[in-house]
């Protein structure tokens, strides 16, 4: 019993601890969640803003780059330049004008540009293409003009056109003169209307936001200027400008100062905002991406609200749970279920709750006194369970006897029925429990009456009475018992105070001392002993004061003079305060032992009566520890029969732990040290249980002082101990339940007047008990609740006897109103009339508030969905039927009547996606039990437009893990998709363009080391790059230029670095030796640090140019020849003929002959020259079909022809044997050899052994033929001029000077080349020439 109670206590403590720990846990987790969430939230918002900002910045950069590309393509267009030049020179030529218009229209996407102007050098507009709002072209700044004149593309930022009252941007592209690429011949102006693309783009916000806004700004001196249309301000863009110094809290200002990052401040409206600010690279623009703080935190606050509510809910459910467990444990059948959804409770339940809640035993009977109900306390006290007891006569269950008489007391039911009123029960009533326990009880009983006043039952309420009473009773009993024993004993017993004066003495003592009854008290011991003997007494006493008891002999003299020898057994009495306060003395007259024996006999008889007193076990035991006599009570206490007991010793029955202490005392008595002792000891009963007793032992001695027998009384204190504990627990339990159960309990009588309320009821409403008892319960309700109670609830309650979960509003003493749920049951009398009713009221204010805040958070959720345009749905997987939110309906473009089934969904899906989505749904989601998460296309029912949506859904499963529900959201993401598609398209467009350009394009990124450009990396190259350079696209990408081109310093590094740094486009022509190619390279820098090269292979052009130059030079030479060499003889002829005429007139004849000869020679020379010229010109046109010629044979023929001059000069001519076959015009090749050999012969000068060698050597795969002489040689200065027409080194030498010119012309016509080598004067000369091989010629022909 004690154990159980202790366990209960521990359990309660444990529960309380658990509750505190849980609550603390929830609150702490909530707090940490809050802190973390706030951090995460902030970084989320910042991230979101910066993502949006980045998106915009990237798009702006891309847009600007695109515009610059447009400009650069234009810059490089020679065709256009030529046409523009022509047109600008003559603007009346409408044909050219139209061609230009078409050309411009083709080159620029008219979607991008509002208007395109062609301007002349004076910046006057000449052509307007794709007219925008107006065709007026506004003023261009001097700076822009200067830049254009320097050939630089100008990007004019946002400006206001006062004429059209609009804002534009403008790109000015200089048109370069195609011939020199330097002179600017005009300008193309591309005007951009920002309202077409830029503004909408900047204003676009990727999610629904009330305050999200992007601002584009630039700095102008000490102001920031807003460039785009503001969301919350109708000012024309550019009109709103704000000073930097005065407004440094403005995000826009922070943007130009901080440049990058998250800032908080007030925006132009003065509203607190959070903003991401950034720079748009390569532009004067800054970007501010901002959101109102209030919006930023609205969702946050919402979350925090939900969090708080959740924690409250958790704490409350914890308390409810703990409370539930506690109650469950305390009072088995009390189950107060707070959940309103499950509040169907039976009357019985409520009744039992109430009854069970009472700490007193309650038994109700019918009019016949048969038990109708018995509560748990009563069950415990009576030892009967409700089911056992029901219907039994009261007294069988409620077995009460008078504590003293052990007589059955009058049946209280009978008494109640007799008196027809409430009765208190007689004192000293003992309830005999069925299980053998006894309880002192205090009780009362009352009739249960119906309305007619007829009693139809009785309620008995009884409680275990207090410990104090039991103690008193026990003490009282004990005192009486001992007094009786002492008074009746044959031993002289007295109490002597420290002054040796008798305070008490029994009859036997009076007899021993020889005084009349009552005469010994007050007498001093000294009066009865000699002085000598008194000394002994005093010695003994003082020793006793320190020590234990003493036994000594004493000779006394009776007042009558008779001497007596007595044995004194003195036991000191001490109390805590005063120490030694006296001595119990047992006096034995050893003079008259027989008298003593007589006394014993007498007292034995006397005891006999007491042996039958039930509550005390009494026994006589032998010095051998055996039982001599035992009473029934003792047998009962120890659980043995008298016979069984007699066969045993008390030692055998003593609890092992108590044997030693008992034996010690026992031995002291045996040894004569003491005559009596008392102790609490335990016995082990026959059934093995332990019984606690208080044992009192006294001994009777034989005249020799040995122990005759022991007299002992045993009091069973087991029940006392148990009762004490039970009483304490019961009281505590009752009080604790009634007062601590967090439920308001009250009871009213049939008039509705309160007759009891619980502590909690009072605390909740804030009243004192005496303020409420006796008042009507409805007085504590609000007006409305009172009316509801009186008009509806009470009449119904009277009829039915119970009411469930009535929502009442109670008014607290302080006026505050609380929401409650009240459930009440009533007690009936036998006629079925309500006697009183007991109500349980639950404070649901908090729950109401919770419901309210739940509703609010639901509303928040709903609003959130609306704002996010998030549609929600739930689908029953088994039927395929779904329900959708209004937003989802509007996303799908359907109404409430729409067929919301799988088919209905499927018909919303875009035809291209239907199969995919159904497969996805059935196989992926349902089949694999995964989350639904897919972006797909739908056809919106309302307008049949194709939309993109993002659907997400979670499956819910039944116990068999089969999906039964899917709940999720759908969001319209069309805009986002379009943005992405547009981006992709644009990217595609440029990539295609890039890949298909005939110019090689390479994109690079400059690599800097400590701010100094050191190398560059190839980011991307196009197909033409591969074609031009022979380096594969795949290999080139990602490589460093130094790696790719295998050079220490990458090619054209300085030019590139300069463009990447300054951003000023640059173009040049170059010869690149590693490839033996000429290139035109244009460099532009789309962003600082990066650059693109656009190059064109101009090798062919260069070669043609060179060829042309050569041709021109030849032509010039020819003209020169005509003007100089042919004029020369003419002058001679005219001059001398003039002279002749003059001489003739003067009659001077001496010079006639010579002058005439001069004239004739000049005429001949002129004829020769003309012949040669004719010949020369013929070579280019008339060339015979080539044939295979053996060169040695041909050379031999030439030598044969020139055999005359050769033999004249004694010249040796050697021809190398086995010269190869050549493919040439035989006749012409003969002429070449002839010229060369003749030349050699002519310039032998004074060579004593003139020699000419004709041969061939090979150099690589080239065959070089030569005619070598050992003549006078040719100064290196003339190695080239000798091949010129009519050029002669020696004016006096023979010939016209056309020979070598002819030879060169012939060789060149054959595709070969001719040149001279000579080391100088008298070192001889070698004329070399090449002829292409036959194979080469064939190849040429084929191509």
């Amino acid at each position, binding site marked *: 019993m004690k154990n159980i109670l202790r366990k209960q206590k521990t359990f309660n403590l444990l529960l309380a601890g658990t509750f505190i720990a849980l609550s603390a846990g929830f609150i702490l987790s909530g707090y940490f969640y809050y802190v973390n969430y706030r951090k995460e939230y902030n970084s989320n918002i910042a991230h979101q803003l910066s993502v949006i900002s980045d998106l915009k910045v990237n798009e702006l950069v891309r847009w600007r780059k695109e515009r610059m590309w447009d400009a650069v393509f234009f810059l490089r267009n020679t065709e256009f330049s030529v046409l523009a030049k022509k047109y600008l020179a003559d603007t009346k030529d409408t044909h050219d004008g139209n061609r230009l218009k078409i050309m411009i229209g083709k080159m620029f996407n008219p979607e991008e540009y509002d208007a395109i102007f062609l301007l002349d050098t004076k910046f006057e507009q000449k052509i307007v293409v794709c007219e925008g709002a107006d065709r007026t072209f506004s003023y261009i700044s001097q700076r822009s003009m200067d830049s254009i004149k320097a050939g630089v593309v100008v990007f004019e930022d946002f400006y206001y056109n006062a004429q059209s009252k609009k804002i534009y941007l403008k790109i000015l592209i200089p048109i370069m003169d195609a011939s020199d690429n330097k002179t600017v011949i005009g300008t193309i102006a591309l005007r951009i209307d920002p309202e077409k693309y830029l503004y909408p783009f900047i204003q676009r916000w990727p999610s629904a936001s009330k305050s999200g806004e992007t601002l584009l700004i630039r700095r102008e001196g000490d102001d920031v200027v807003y460039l785009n249309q503001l969301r919350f301000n109708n000012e024309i863009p550019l009109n709103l400008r704000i000073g930097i110094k005065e407004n440094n809290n403005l995000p826009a200002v922070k943007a130009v100062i901080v440049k990058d990052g998250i800032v908080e401040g007030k925006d132009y409206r003065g509203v607190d905002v959070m903003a991401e600010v950034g720079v748009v690279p390569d532009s004067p623009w800054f970007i501010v991406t901002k959101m109102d703080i209030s919006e930023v935190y609205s969702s946050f606050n919402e979350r925090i609200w939900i969090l708080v509510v959740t924690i409250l809910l958790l704490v409350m459910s914890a308390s409810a749970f703990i409370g539930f467990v506690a109650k469950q444990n305390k009072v088995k059948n009390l189950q107060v279920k707070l959940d309103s959804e499950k509040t169907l409770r039976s009357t019985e339940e409520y009744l039992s709750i109430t009854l069970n809640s009472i700490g007193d035993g309650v038994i109700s009977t019918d009019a016949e006194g048969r038990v109708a109900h018995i509560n748990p306390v009563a069950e415990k006290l009576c030892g009967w369970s409700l089911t056992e007891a029901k219907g039994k006569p009261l007294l069988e269950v409620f077995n009460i006897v008078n504590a003293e008489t052990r007589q059955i007391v009058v049946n209280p039911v009978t008494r109640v029925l007799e008196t027809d009123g409430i009765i208190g029960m007689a004192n000293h009533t003992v309830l005999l429990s069925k299980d053998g326990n006894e309880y002192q009880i205090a009780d009362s009983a009352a009739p249960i009456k119906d309305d007619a006043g007829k009693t139809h039952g009785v309620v008995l309420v009884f409680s275990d009475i207090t410990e104090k009473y039991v103690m008193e009773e026990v003490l009282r009993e004990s005192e009486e018992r001992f007094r009786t024993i002492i008074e009746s004993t044959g031993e002289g017993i007295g109490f002597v105070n420290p002054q040796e004066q008798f305070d008490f003495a029994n009859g036997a003592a009076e007899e021993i001392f020889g005084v009349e009854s009552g005469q010994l008290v007050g007498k001093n011991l000294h009066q009865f002993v000699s002085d000598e003997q008194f000394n002994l007494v005093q010695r003994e006493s003082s020793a006793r004061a320190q020590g234990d008891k003493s036994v000594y002999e004493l000779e006394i003299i009776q007042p009558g003079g008779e001497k007596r020898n007595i044995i004194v057994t003195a036991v000191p009495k001490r109390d805590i305060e005063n120490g030694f306060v006296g001595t119990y003395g047992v006096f034995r007259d050893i003079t008259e032992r027989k008298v003593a024996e007589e006394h014993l006999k007498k007292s034995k008889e006397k005891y006999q009566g007491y042996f039958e007193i039930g509550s005390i076990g009494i026994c006589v035991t032998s010095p051998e520890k055996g039982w001599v006599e035992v009473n029934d009570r003792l047998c009962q206490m120890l659980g043995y029969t008298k016979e069984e007991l007699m066969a045993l010793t008390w030692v055998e029955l003593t609890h092992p732990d108590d044997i030693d202490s008992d034996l010690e005392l026992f031995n002291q008595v045996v040894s004569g040290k003491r005559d009596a002792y008392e102790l609490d000891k335990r016995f082990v009963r026959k059934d093995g249980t332990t019984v606690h007793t208080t044992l009192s032992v006294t001994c009777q001695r034989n005249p020799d002082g040995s122990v005759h027998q022991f007299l002992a009384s045993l009091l069973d204190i087991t029940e006392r101990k148990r009762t004490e504990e039970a009483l304490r627990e019961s009281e505590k339990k009752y009080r604790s339940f009634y007062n601590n159960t967090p439920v308001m309990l009250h009871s009213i009588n049939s008039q509705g007047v309160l007759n009891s309320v619980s502590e909690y009821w009072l605390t909740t409403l804030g009243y004192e008990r005496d303020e409420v008892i006796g008042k009507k319960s409805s007085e504590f309700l609000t007006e409305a609740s009172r009316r509801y109670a009186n008009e509806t609830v009470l009449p119904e309650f009277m009829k039915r006897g119970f009411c469930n979960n009535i929502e009442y509003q109670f008014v607290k003493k302080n006026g505050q109103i609380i929401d409650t749920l009240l459930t009440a049951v009533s007690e009936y009398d036998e006629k079925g009339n309500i006697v009183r009713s007991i109500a349980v009221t639950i404070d649901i204010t908090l729950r109401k508030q919770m419901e309210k805040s739940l509703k609010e958070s639901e509303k928040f959720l709903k609003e959130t969905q609306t704002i996010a345009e998030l549609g929600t749905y739930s689908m029953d997987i088994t039927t395929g039927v779904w329900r959708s939110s209004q937003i989802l309906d509007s996303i799908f473009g359907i109404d409430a009547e729409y067929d919301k089934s799988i088919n209905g969904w499927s018909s919303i899906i875009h035809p291209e996606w239907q199969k995919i989505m159904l497969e996805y749904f059935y196989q992926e989601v349902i089949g694999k039990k995964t989350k639904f998460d897919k972006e797909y296309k739908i056809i919106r029912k309302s307008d049949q437009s194709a939309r993109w949506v993002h659907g997400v859904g979670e499956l819910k499963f039944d116990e068999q893990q089969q999906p039964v529900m899917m709940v999720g959201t759908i969001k319209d993401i069309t805009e986002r998709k379009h943005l992405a598609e547009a981006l992709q398209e644009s990217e595609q467009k440029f990539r295609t363009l890039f890949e298909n350009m005939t110019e090689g394009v390479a994109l690079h990124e400059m690599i800097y080391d400590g701010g100094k450009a050191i190398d560059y990396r190839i980011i991307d190259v196009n197909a033409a790059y591969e074609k031009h350079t022979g380096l594969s696209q795949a290999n080139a990408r990602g490589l460093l230029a130094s790696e790719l081109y295998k050079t220490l310093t990458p090619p054209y590094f300085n030019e590139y670095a300069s463009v990447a740094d300054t951003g000023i486009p640059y173009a040049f022509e170059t010869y690149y030796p590693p490839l033996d190619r000429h290139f035109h390279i244009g460099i532009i820098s789309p962003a600082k640090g990066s650059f693109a090269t656009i190059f064109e292979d101009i090798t062919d052009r260069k070669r043609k140019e060179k060829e042309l130059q050569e041709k021109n030079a030849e032509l010039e030479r020819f003209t020169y020849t005509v003007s100089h*060499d042919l004029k020369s003889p*003419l*002058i*001679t002829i*005219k001059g001398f003929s*003039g002279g002749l005429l003059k001489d003739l007139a003067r009659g001077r004849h001496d010079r006639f002959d010579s002058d005439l000869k001069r004239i004739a020679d000049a005429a001949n020379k002129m004829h020769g020259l003309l012949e040669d010229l004719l010949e020369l010109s013929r070579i280019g046109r008339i060339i015979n079909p080539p044939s295979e010629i053996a060169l040695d044979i041909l050379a031999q023929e030439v030598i044969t022809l020139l055999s005359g001059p050769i033999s004249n000069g004694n010249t040796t001519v050697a021809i190398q044997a086995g010269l190869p076959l050549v493919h040439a015009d035989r006749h012409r090749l003969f002429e070449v050899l002839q010229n060369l050999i003749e030349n050699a012969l002519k310039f032998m000068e004074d060579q004593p052994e003139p020699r000419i060698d004709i041969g061939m050597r090979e150099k690589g795969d080239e065959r070089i033929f030569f005619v070598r002489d050992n003549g006078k040689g040719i100064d290196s*200065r003339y190695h080239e001029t000798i091949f010129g027409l009519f050029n002669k080194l020696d004016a006096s030498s023979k010939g016209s000077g056309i020979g070598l010119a002819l030879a060169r012309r012939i060789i060149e016509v054959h595709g070969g080349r001719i040149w001279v080598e000579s080391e100088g004067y008298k070192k001889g000369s070698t004329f070399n020439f090449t002829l292409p091989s036959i194979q080469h010629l064939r190849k040429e022909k084929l191509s």
Partner: protein
Amino acid sequence: MNGDPLTILLVEDNPDHAELVKRNLEEFQVANQISHVEDGEAALDYMKGRGRYSNRSKYPLPDLILLDLRLPRIDGLEVLREIKSDTTMHMIPVVILTTSDGERDVAMAYEYHANSYVTKPVDFDNFAMLLKDLGFYWLAWNKRPW
């Protein structure tokens, strides 16, 4: 016009033209001495007093050089460049007298500091007139620095 004998150096590869020039100059008696060389090399040798022209009294530095452009061995323009870059003789007026009226020739001649450029007239009278004027202008009218 002081009493010093006036010398003209004629650099002309065409002997007929040389004869014509000499005849006209003599006719008008503009010079005391006319030296004639036939190619550029000879012209430079003469000017620098090299080889067979080392005798300065026989081949004095001329007061005027008439220089044809199309010359064997060393081109007239080269001769001009050498004369004009030699400080001992760069002040001597050089008149280019040639058949060519090519733009390039004219430009190059002046580039090399020719004092005058004259195209030989085909017509005899004009030819005579030109030489007369030329002689008088450079030798009589023109103020020389020495």
